[in-house]
Each structure stands twice: as structure tokens, then as C-alpha cells.
């Protein structure tokens, strides 16, 4: 303690003398203001002040300064997997106010094994703002004490502590500290987190997190490396590598989810960005959780600027066009049958049937919107048509379509069992049928995004809930519109041919699109769950057919056919058992999948890194996002993208063709699509040479459209050579 006292006296003497000197020269002199040191073989710690004299009411900084022996480190506020941040308790005169530690941006300190710490090596200062009491008396000293504890680690960890005291002269004016102390604060200043001028979003998908940061200054030239330091433990897996991908203006880090990631909580932290010169700066970011990435693609801003009624109109048109998309084909078959049913029907009946169908469509759209919104709110990033990414759903769907097909083929009936039903019952069953046909139409149709719909859904999912629901309902009305028209203008139904045998034949014929769709879904499953998935799907199909046949026999039996019904029920239970098996089925690697997909010529698998590299070289790139369950995508590939004409057009222009496969969930592709405010497939983008902005192509392609876009982009390039 006496040492401290000596030091204090010495300090006061120096201060007194320098004050005299300052008076003599008429300028404040720089004085070293640093406490006595606590020293170990690992750390030399002092308390420093950036002001040699302080004025009443002035805010200045004190800091715990640590000079660290080589390889030893102390910790940031989130210390990572090990260690703990230093704790500093200041003792201040009454009336003084104090901030918390202004944490300098940390570095990563990796250890052997899956262990990552966040902290500092060599030298660091932990600054704290202190405000001098307004009633402080010039000429006296402001005494500041600090009790600090910290843990310092190399491979081993040693807890240390120190008590420090500074007596800072109070003067009318403030005087800066010495160069040595200033240099120490400069270390903290160089790491002082800046407010990130960007919008950011953290999207969770399975065990992965995608952090997207959007800002015009985030260019490939400006960002050489980036790392996200979460402010608290459990948000990310600290030891997992963070993969950076950059397209100009959008920075994406692929992270691994931490053990206690909570989509409802804040996930603020520091984004460390290292520029081309190797200088790292730290930016405070508070990403919003879930939903589409921050910032708006051109299409999005267009839609967002539209009045609500126009957005709703686009959604309605999108729904209308959905009727023409290939994946709605099986449902069109049901609808065709249902419309035929109306032939010669009574006015009231026709109206009711169309009303129920419309209701079914709207209920399904509302349910889907609610499910998507709930998952978004839960922080899970899902795209339109997401249900087709689940092998369970795909298998179940293929069985359902098979069962409907068998029903259409007349293998089994349910109405027959209650033969001699009165008209009222038939009507009732017809209405429920209409309703569920509507539901089914939506569930099956979702993987097809029609033109207009991509943008509408993108807007819908980021919009407030009521707007979102409005957009989805408008889309539902669009889908239901052709059928609803029959209700509004029942005379249309009268234009249909008179009822007769043709209706039975039509119904039988419509079974085949059902079988075709079931077969297609089995193929989708083969992409998702491999040959095991096909085995399960076909075995299930067998059981479904068996159950249908048995049930049909039971219906034709004079008795109750309990045995047959029992067998049928057992077979259905069997299919559920198979579904459980599918749950654990492994998926073949994406590479294997894309290799196996037919009609594939001259493309590379998509990755943000590859795209960025190609664009940096100034090469033109064509991006195709596809999935086995997106039949529109497959049609486009077969009729357009894989043709010799287009492939030759690509070769002539030196275009690299990148293909992304979204058959299974893939956060990278999900994030990429959302950067265009898209949530579904198909998606095509052309990046012209010279790293210029991409052109998004329509979802239904023809050779003429693709060649036209390539030409247009190239001419606009030569017309404005300055743009780059």
C-alpha cells in the first residue's frame, strides 16, 4: 500500500509541476496518466485515463490496459467456447457517472479441436466513459479506483486480478494524456465497433443459419473477409467455419446454429469486415430474424411501391395463370370431372358447387399462408412449395393421387355402399367433394410459381399479416376463378353437353393423369431419398391399391364385408408404417443428384462463391434454380435450356451455366432466391459480362425468350460501355 502512496505523491508532484509548466507556456501539457501496474508473467495491467486533467461535467475515458505475453489472450464480452470477459468495478466520487465497458472488436483465437474463443492478444484496452461531477472543484483531484478480474489463457488459463487507482487533477480545462497512453487508447479505438449502416437478416434453416447483410458499399472490392461475432453464447456454433459469399451489395455468411439459438430473441453482434488492404473493422449489427433478406431487389421495390389493389390484382392474375401450369394438371382432371358433373345441373346446385370449391381453395390458401407465416415467425426460412421438400409429403401425395386415380377408375366407390341415397345426400357429398377438390388443388399446385406470383409471394411474406392474407386470398380467388365463373354465370354450365355416358368415360380417362402424377412423384422421391425411397413409395402404392381393391370388394358384397374392410384397413396402416421408414431415409448427395439428372449438358453446380468468382472475372453467367418436384423447371430445361440452340448460344457467348438444385432444402439457394425477393421456383437469371446487374428471366421459357434476353443484355452492354 505504501508503494501506491509513493506513486500517488509522485504523480501529484509531477502534475503540480506540469501545471506550472503549462501555465508558464500557456498551453496544456500532455501527461502520462497511468496507474501503477499489476504484473504477472502473462499480463501487465494498468488503469489509464485519456485526460491528464478533467473539467467539471466533462466526459472522458478510463481504461483497463493489458499488455499480454506472446500467445496469451484475454476475452471479449462473448468469450466464445471458453474463458470469460474481464470484470471491472470502478470506484468513483459521488456525482460521477459511468458507462459500461465499450468492448473493442475481438479476434478469433482457435484451439485444437472444435474450440473457438473470441478475444485479444498482444495489447488491449477496455475503455469506460466517465463523466466528472458538475460540482467538482478545480484544483482538487478526482480519485478513481478500479477492481478488475480477468482470466488469461494460452493453452492453460490463469485467473488474475488487480486493484488500481488514478488521481486525476480537476482543472477549468481538460488536457490530453501522453502519447503512450493515447497510443494505448488508439488500440481500442481501432477496434471500436461502428454502427453498421446496413440492414441485416438472420435466417434459420435446419441446423444452418444464413446471415445476409445488404449495403451498397459491400462490394467484392471492399470485402476480403468477414466474420460474425454474436454478442452472446449459443446463437452460433463458434467453432464452425463461416462461409462468405458476396454479390455486390449483398454479403451472406453461412453459419452453424448454436445450441440455444432462439428465433424469438435478438441476435445482435459484430460483423468484422476485412478490406482489400487487410484492415479489419467491426460493425454493430442487429439482424432481424427470419423472413426474406433485408434490402429489396428491383422487382420487390416495384411491387412494394404498387398500391395494395394492384398487388392484389397481380396476385389474382398469378392465381388465374396457376390454372395453366403443369403441376396443376392432376387437379385440372378433378376439376374437369367436377365441371362435367354440373352439366345439366340446376342453377342453385351449380352455384353451391362453385361456391364450395372456391371456399376450399381459399381455406387452403389461408392455411398455407398461416403455416408459412408461423414458420417465418419461428425463424425458419421456407420457400413456396416447401412441402415438396419433405420426402414424407411427396410419398403421401403420390399415394393420395394413386387412390384418387383408382377411385376414378372405378376400383372402389364410397357412395355405392350407401346405395339408394336421396338427392339431398348426393348433393351434400358433391358439395363436400367440391370443397376438398379446392383444398387439393392448392396443395398440389403450390410448387409451380406462375409469372407474377414470385414477386407477389415475396411481398406477401414480408408484408404485415393482413396484407399477406389479402394477397394469398387474391391468389386463391384467381385459382378458383374459372370455376367460380360457372357459379356467377350458370348459363355457361348449360353450354356443356347433356349428361350421358361421356361423363363416365371422361371420369375413367381422368384417372390416367392421376397415375402419371403419382409416377412423377415417385421419381421426385428417388431424387430425394434414393432407391430406398422408391422402394418405400412403390410398396406403399401396392398397399394402397390392395386396400382400394379390398374396399371395392367389400362394397360389392351383399354382407358388410368386414373381412375385406379389415384387410383394407390393415393395408393402409401398413403404408403409414412405411412412411415412418422413409423418415430416416438418407438423401443422396447433391452432386450425385445433379449428375444423374437427365438432359444435363455443360453446367456447373451453383454456389455463391463460384458465381462471385465468375462475375469478378467479368464473365457472363446464366443461373438456373431447379428442383425435381418443380415440373415447370423440368419442362423448361427439356424444351429450352438443354437444347442444342441454347447450349450453343451459351458456348458462343462464353456463358457459364450454373444450376442449383433445390430438391432438398439448401440454405444457400434459399438465401440466393430471397435476395431476389423470390420464394419459389422456377428461377432464371442472366448476369451479363462485365459484372453488370443480373436480368431475371420469366418463369416459363422458350428458346426465343432466352436468346432474346441474351441479345438484349449484350446490346445494352455495348450501348452503355461505361456501365460496369
Amino acid at each position, binding site marked *: 500500500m505504501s508503494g501506491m502512496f509513493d506513486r500517488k505523491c509522485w504523480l501529484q508532484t509531477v502534475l503540480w509541476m506540469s501545471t506550472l509548466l503549462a501555465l508558464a507556456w500557456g498551453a496544456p501539457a500532455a501527461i502520462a496518466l497511468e496507474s501503477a501496474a499489476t504484473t504477472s508473467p502473462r499480463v501487465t495491467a494498468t488503469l489509464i485515463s485519456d485526460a491528464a486533467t478533467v473539467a467539471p461535467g466533462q466526459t472522458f475515458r478510463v481504461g483497463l490496459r493489458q499488455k499480454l505475453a506472446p500467445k496469451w489472450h484475454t476475452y471479449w464480452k462473448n468469450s466464445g*467456447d*471458453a*474463458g*470469460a470477459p474481464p*470484470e471491472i468495478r470502478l470506484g468513483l466520487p459521488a456525482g460521477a457517472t459511468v458507462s459500461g465497458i465499450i468492448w473493442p472488436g475481438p479476434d478469433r483465437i482457435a*484451439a*485444437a*479441436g*472444435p*474450440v473457438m474463443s473470441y478475444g485479444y492478444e498482444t495489447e488491449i484496452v477496455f475503455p469506460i466513459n466517465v463523466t466528472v461531477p458538475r460540482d467538482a472543484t478545480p484544483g482538487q483531484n478526482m480519485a478513481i479506483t478500479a477492481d478488475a*478480474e480477468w*482470466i488469461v*489463457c494460452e*493453452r*492453460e*488459463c490463469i485467473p488474475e486480478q488487480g486493484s488500481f487507482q488514478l488521481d486525476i487533477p480537476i482543472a477549468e480545462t481538460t488536457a490530453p494524456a501522453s502519447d503512450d497512453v493515447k497510443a494505448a487508447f488508439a488500440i481500442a479505438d481501432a477496434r471500436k465497433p461502428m454502427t453498421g449502416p446496413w440492414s441485416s437478416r438472420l435466417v434459420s*434453416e435446419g*441446423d444452418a443459419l444464413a446471415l445476409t447483410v445488404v449495403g451498397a458499399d459491400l462490394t467484392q472490392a471492399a470485402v476480403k473477409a468477414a466474420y460474425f461475432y454474436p454478442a452472446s453464447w*449459443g446463437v452460433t456454433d463458434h*467453432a464452425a467455419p463461416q462461409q462468405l459469399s458476396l454479390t455486390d451489395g449483398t454479403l451472406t455468411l453461412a453459419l*452453424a446454429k448454436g445450441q*440455444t439459438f432462439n428465433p424469438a430473441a435478438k441476435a445482435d453482434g459484430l460483423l468484422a469486415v476485412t478490406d482489400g488492404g487487410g484492415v479489419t473493422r467491426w460493425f454493430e449489427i442487429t439482424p432481424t430474424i427470419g423472413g426474406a433478406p433485408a434490402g429489396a431487389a428491383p422487382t420487390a421495390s416495384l411491387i412494394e411501391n404498387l398500391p395494395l389493389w394492384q398487388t392484389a390484382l397481380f396476385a389474382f392474375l398469378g392465381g388465374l395463370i396457376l390454372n395453366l401450369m403443369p403441376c396443376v394438371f392432376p387437379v385440372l382432371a378433378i376439376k374437369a370431372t*367436377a365441371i362435367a*358433373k354440373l352439366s*345439366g*345441373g340446376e342453377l342453385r346446385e351449380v352455384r353451391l358447387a362453385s361456391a364450395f370449391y372456391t371456399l376450399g381453395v381459399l381455406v*387452403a390458401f389461408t392455411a398455407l399462408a398461416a*403455416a408459412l407465416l408461423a414458420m417465418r415467425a419461428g425463424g*425458419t426460412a*421456407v420457400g413456396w412449395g*416447401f*412441402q415438396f*421438400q*419433405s420426402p*414424407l*409429403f411427396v410419398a*403421401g401425395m403420390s399415394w*393420395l393421387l394413386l*387412390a*384418387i386415380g383408382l*377411385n376414378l377408375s372405378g376400383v*372402389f*366407390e*364410397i*357412395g355405392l355402399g350407401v346405395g339408394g*341415397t336421396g338427392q339431398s345426400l*348426393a*348433393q351434400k*357429398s*358433391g358439395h*363436400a*367433394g367440391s370443397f*376438398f*377438390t379446392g*383444398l*387439393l388443388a392448392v*396443395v398440389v399446385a403450390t410448387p409451380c410459381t406462375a409469372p407474377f406470383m414470385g414477386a407477389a409471394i415475396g411481398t406477401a411474406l414480408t408484408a404485415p399479416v393482413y396484407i399477406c392474407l389479402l394477397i394469398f386470398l387474391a391468389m386463391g380467388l384467381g385459382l378458383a376463378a374459372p370455376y367460380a365463373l360457372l357459379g356467377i354465370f350458370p348459363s355457361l354450365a348449360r353450354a356443356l353437353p347433356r*349428361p350421358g355416358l361421356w361423363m*363416365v368415360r371422361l*371420369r375413367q380417362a381422368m384417372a390416367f393423369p392421376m397415375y402419371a402424377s403419382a409416377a412423377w412423384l415417385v421419381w421426385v422421391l428417388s431424387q430425394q431419398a434414393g432407391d430406398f425411397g422408391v422402394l418405400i413409395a412403390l410398396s406403399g402404392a401396392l398397399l394402397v391399391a390392395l386396400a382400394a381393391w379390398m374396399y371395392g370388394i367389400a362394397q360389392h358384397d351383399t354382407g358388410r364385408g368386414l373381412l375385406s374392410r379389415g384387410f383394407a384397413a390393415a393395408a393402409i396402416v401398413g403404408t403409414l408404417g412405411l412412411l415412418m421408414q422413409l423418415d430416416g431415409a438418407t438423401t443422396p448427395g447433391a452432386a450425385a443428384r445433379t449428375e444423374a439428372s437427365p438432359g444435363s449438358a455443360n453446367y456447373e453446380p451453383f454456389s455463391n462463391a463460384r458465381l462471385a468468382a465468375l462475375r469478378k472475372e467479368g464473365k457472363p453467367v446464366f443461373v438456373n434454380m431447379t428442383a425435381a418436384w418443380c415440373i415447370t423447371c423440368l419442362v423448361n430445361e427439356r424444351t429450352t435450356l438443354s437444347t442444342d440452340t441454347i447450349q450453343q448460344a451459351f458456348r458462343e457467348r462464353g456463358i457459364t451455366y450454373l444450376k442449383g438444385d433445390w430438391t432438398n432444402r439448401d440454405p444457400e439457394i434459399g438465401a440466393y432466391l430471397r435476395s431476389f425477393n423470390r420464394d419459389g421456383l422456377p428461377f432464371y437469371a442472366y448476369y451479363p459480362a462485365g459484372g453488370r446487374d443480373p436480368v431475371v428471366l420469366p418463369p416459363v421459357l422458350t428458346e426465343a425468350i432466352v436468346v432474346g434476353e441474351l441479345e438484349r443484355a449484350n446490346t445494352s452492354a455495348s450501348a452503355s460501355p461505361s456501365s460496369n
Partner: protein
Amino acid sequence: MTDIRSKVLADLAFDRRTLMLGTTAGLTAVAAGGLTMLSSRPAFASPQINKPAPDFSAIDSNGKTVSLASLRGKIVALEWTNHDCPYVRKHYNTGNMQSLQKQAADAGIVWLSVISSPPGEQGNVTPEKANELTQTRKAAPAAVLLDPKGQVGRAYDARTTPQMFLINAEGTLVYMGGIDSIPSTRADDIEKATPYFKDAIVAVTKGEPVQNAVTRPYGCTVKYTTS
């Protein structure tokens, strides 16, 4: 006319129940698909709470082989340790760790202390030294497992000493994380902290769910071998 129509209608009427069941199944599958997405899948070998605990086999300080599979039917506690780590010393010097070990032993829980430090690193001990430490510290683990290659450590993605895991009698991982809630080396903090691991032991013994099943482990790094 009406008769023909109603007959045809009855024939054509979409099988109501098929559709109803089918569509319900379809929508259920949508929901199930969504839930599957929400639940996580292992990115790499890291243990998951409420999932089967990774099996392991290691030699204890008495030369016996201990595997998780052989302990099925018993509750198992895992404690990563390094006797020279100040965070570990905090809990041994105060007797906190020993009292937890005794509490566990009384409840029939098999407590395994695991040392993943390779030779030359802090915490690495010979079997004799491990037994001596147990004696001098009056510790009461069922066994001390020596894991110098870090295989058990990596299987559990253990990152700190101490770090605690609790596995129920069915072999399900029901707790992973810190021993308590205050990440410091100060002995005084033990009293103030929420005793996460103690709470987990009590809950599992009673057959109740663990309230805080995943917490932050704190301490020194596990000194994994680089080879």
C-alpha cells in the same frame, strides 16, 4: 331425367371420404414437413438433446473398459475435467463437485469424470495420478475415464472443463452444458448461481423433464490433441 342425373351424380360424386381423408393427410404432411424443417438435423457430430447420447468406450483409471452401452438402464453423468483448470478448481476446492458426485451416487447415477487432455497438456494424468486426485480431493466419481486421444470428447463436442452431460436410463441425452449459471472462477459465485446440473440430476431422478436442458458450458478449453 332427374333420376339419370342423380344416378350419374352419385357415380361421379367424388368419393367424399377419400378426398377428405386424403386432403387431411396432405395438409397433415404439410405440417409434418414444416415441423421436420423446424427440428434440426446434425450438421456434424454434435450431441443433440433428447436424442440418443453418442456411445463411447474408454479405459478408466483402473484399466477397466467402460462403455455407455454397458450402462444402459442406469442414469449416467459425464463431467469433463482438467484438475489444473481454475474453473475446475473452483468447484473442487469448494467441495461443490464432490457433493454433486455424492448426491449422484446416492441416487444410483453412474458419474464418469472424463479427461481428454493428451500427454504434455494441462490436465493429462497417469491412471495412478487420477486415482490419487480422487483420493486427495475426496471425489466420488464411479470412474475416471482417460481419453487422451479426445475421442469421447469429440463425440460429445465437449469444449470446456468443466462441462456436464446427463444421460437417462434409456440412453437419451437429457442435459448438456455448464455446471451452473455464473461463468467465473470465484468460489463465492457458486452460492449465487443457478445450479443447472444439480437441478438436472434432481429432475432426472424424479423422472421429470429437465427445465434448462441446454446451458452454456463455461471454463477452460478442452485440450484436444492436435495429432
